[in-house]
């Protein structure tokens, strides 16, 4: 099982802060496809994915127990 986090505009657009999904074995790109399919109105173009609190690459593969966070463009400071 993978835990997914949604923040800021993505949290508001999905109505979800956190959910669990059977995504182990999939890549980060495939995770984004899954999210796109589930929330077709979301714009994910500039969204980065962090796996276990580190930015991940599109081909990185998810393992059971991982957390994956969708990181919309940041605006701290």
């Amino acid at each position, binding site marked *: 099982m993978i835990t997914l986090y949604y*923040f*800021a505009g993505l949290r508001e657009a999905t109505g979800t802060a956190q959910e669990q999904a059977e995504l182990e074995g999939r890549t980060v790109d495939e995770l984004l496809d899954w999210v796109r399919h589930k929330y077709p109105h979301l714009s994910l173009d*500039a969204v*980065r994915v962090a796996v276990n609190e580190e930015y991940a690459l599109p081909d990185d593969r998810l393992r059971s127990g991982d957390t994956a966070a969708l990181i919309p463009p*940041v605006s701290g400071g």
Partner: protein
Amino acid sequence: MKPYEIVTEPIDPQRYADYVLRPEAGAVTLFTGHVREWTRGIRTLYLAYEAYVPMAEKMLAKIGAEIDRQWPGTRTAIAHRIGELKIGEIAVVIAVSSAHRKDAYEANEYAIERIKELVPIWKKEIWENGTEWIGDQRGKPEPDSGQADPAPTTLKPRRELP
């Protein structure tokens, strides 16, 4: 206090300046980012910041490690506040000490640039007639005071991936 932290209470910048001071430090730069009343001609009532807290603290520490490598002998502390912030309140504080002043200026400015690229924190502007999550400030020009900023690009990308 931790040297790299996300906080929910008002920030006392002096604590971070004190933290980085050592007998061999000749210079301390302290940057504070404040909630502005006017942005792009729109009056902000207040801001709401949200963070992915554990990752944000990890990324702040990573920026600190980058500074250690690029400006050896400096000491750095960074804090970012989340929650609702009123006009004038401090959203972010960066303190850097160094033997010689140039390092402290450069490292401090580097830190704020990296925060805006890297750290999972999001700002929502609350105006009288609406709200907006602000996104991707990396390519944002720094106009002279008085000039208008470009429109924010919520979830509209300029670049992909870190």
